């Protein structure tokens, strides 16, 4: 596994679109294409699926939607021959919440409360994508302190999300102690979030115009204690997991993907980087002020589950590096834009000024109007490229809000990763893809 430098040109190799043969086939060699409802009859058949094989050992196994692998409500239909998974079909939709329809009924200020519950392990990224798209449509500039606060909170959220991955990955493989350790560090980060935003999860903190509240006094001390606390614990995880033969045998060579296939399937994030493809939106299409901080983009070598695990572990260290630089470079100033039509006034001003009262009333009842147009903004969330496509009709509510959920797209790699592997590897593969079902189903 190597890290690449962040300066100058990217080492993105020119990939030929035609070399991802395996994933382009239409014969369903890895993807099982049968209707959900008919599977009840198919499962009860003793042998065969009408494929012409008389007494082979093929059966369709239904895994989920409620199963112990702690990845939410994902249902898998596995066509198996003995213990080998031949084809599979992920069935999703068990958490479909109609968030895109709900987004059309909420104002732009209420929008982050809705999108934050999509990717509930890293909610600040969804809020960030939505806020960036709204600000693009509004044409407003966010003050520098707000930008740097957003960067700080997003990188801490990346750390907490990757710690959640370490915990659930460990538990799915049977290393139950890893579950306890991962949550232990996550609690420290969540405590910082609670002090700043008021909530442990689903913060609704990053709003169009800036952030909801300034950092508390003494935040440097809290962030410094996080920076001192986490790296030694990461070393402990490496001692526990990386060099352990059981862990290596369970994850190395399991669920291999090459860069061409990942790009053909539109996979992004650690899955793409673990294949060896050097692509990270923070460096290659910088948003916020990521070009002012130094960090390395972590890439893998073989695209297997072990590389995905190791890439995420190393990304925690890189995020801590960014957090340390933000700690030193945080500018002073406003934490949200001063544009009165967009930002609600401070509560104290409402008693003094009539205009402040009217602005407050208009913003919270009707909402601020956003000019007509469309915008697509993407951020690099812990799962990949998280994009928000907003279409506005000039009113206070979005006309169409679409979130490009990275887990939804990354799940398409699952049948190809599980093809011809044993069923015991299926759990390891699902957990290495790290889907969050709230974002998949929206």
């Amino acid at each position: 596994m190597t890290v690449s430098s962040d300066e100058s040109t990217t080492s993105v190799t020119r990939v030929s679109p035609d070399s991802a043969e395996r994933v382009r086939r239409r014969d369903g060699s890895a993807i099982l294409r049968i209707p959900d409802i008919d599977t009840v009859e198919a499962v009860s058949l003793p042998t065969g699926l009408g494929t012409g094989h008389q007494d082979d050992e093929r059966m369709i196994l239904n895994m989920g939607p409620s199963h112990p692998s702690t990845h939410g409500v994902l249902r898998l239909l596995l066509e198996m021959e003995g213990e080998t998974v031949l084809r599979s079909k992920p069935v999703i939709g068990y958490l479909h919440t109609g968030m895109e329809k709900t987004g059309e009924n909420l104002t732009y200020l209420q929008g982050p409360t809705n999108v934050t519950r999509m990717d509930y392990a890293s909610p600040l990224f969804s809020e960030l994508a939505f806020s960036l798209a709204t600000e693009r449509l509004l044409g407003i500039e966010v003050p520098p302190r707000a930008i740097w606060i957003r960067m700080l909170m997003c990188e801490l959220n990346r750390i907490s999300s990757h710690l959640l991955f370490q915990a659930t990955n460990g538990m799915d493989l049977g290393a139950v102690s890893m579950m306890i350790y991962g949550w232990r560090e996550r609690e420290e980060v969540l405590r910082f979030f609670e002090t700043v935003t008021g909530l442990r999860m689903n913060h609704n903190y990053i709003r169009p115009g800036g952030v909801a509240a300034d950092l508390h006094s003494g935040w440097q001390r809290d962030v410094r204690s996080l920076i001192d606390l986490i790296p030694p614990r990461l070393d402990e995880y490496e001692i526990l997991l990386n060099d352990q033969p059981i862990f290596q045998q369970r994850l190395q060579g399991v669920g291999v993907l090459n860069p061409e296939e990942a790009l053909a399937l539109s996979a992004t994030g650690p899955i793409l980087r673990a294949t060896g493809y050097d692509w990270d939106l923070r460096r290659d299409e910088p948003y916020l002020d990521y070009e002012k901080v130094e960090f390395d983009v972590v890439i893998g070598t073989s695209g297997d589950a072990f590389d995905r695990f190791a890439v995420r572990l190393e990304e925690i260290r890189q995020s801590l590096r960014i957090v340390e630089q933000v700690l030193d470079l945080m500018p002073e100033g406003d934490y949200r834009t001063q544009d009165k039509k967009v930002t609600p006034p401070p509560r104290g001003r409402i008693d003094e000024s009539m205009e402040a009262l009217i602005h407050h009333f208009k913003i919270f009842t009707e909402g601020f109007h956003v000019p007509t147009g469309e915008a697509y903004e993407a951020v690099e969330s812990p799962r990949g490229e998280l994009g928000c496509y907003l279409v506005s009709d000039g009113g206070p509510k979005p006309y169409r809000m679409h979130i490009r959920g990275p887990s939804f797209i990354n799940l398409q790699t699952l049948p190809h990763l599980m093809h011809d592997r044993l069923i015991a590897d299926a759990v390891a593969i699902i957990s290495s893809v790290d889907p969050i079902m709230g974002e998949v189903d929206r």
Partner: protein
Amino acid sequence: MARVPVLGGMPQVFQEGLEGLEHNFVTGRVEDLVKWSRARSCWPATFGLACCAIEMMATGAAHYDLARYGMEVFRASPRQADLMIVAGRVSQKMAPVLRQIYDQMMEPKWVISMGVCASSGGMFNNYAIVQGVDQIVPVDVYAPGCPPGPETLMHAILTLHESIRNGEIMRRRSTTGQGAAIDLAEFPSDQAEAL
């Protein structure tokens, strides 16, 4: 029998024969013992759906430890579980699955509706979400919050334990015919013990 030296002399627990009887046995009514053991080893079924599932896992982790209540084993098989904590929003596609898992659980079984989405549909009053899981299964304790922090979930669990232990929950169920319908928001935590 080996004698362990203890400050103050010979411990009475090591007296042989019938003299140590009152120190070596615990007596009680059968109902109380049954309720006590039911309350103290209530095993939850894994039914984490969405964001509340993350908080439920956090409650089971080291900081807000559920093992001290005997509940750290989240049984995957509903046949082995006593308690179903519906953690998260229940969509239309998930509702039959939820009912099927509830039906597979053995009596006595309890349901905690964790979070506002499970209690009432939460902020999602739309076509896709069942407006309250009590439309599908009888709920015993409703825990509000979005998501409820681990302390709220523990308050809900302790309320449930108390009401199991003093029989309150069975009485409520027999009057309503359905779940016990204890709404945590109505009971401040210091009154939960009195339930």
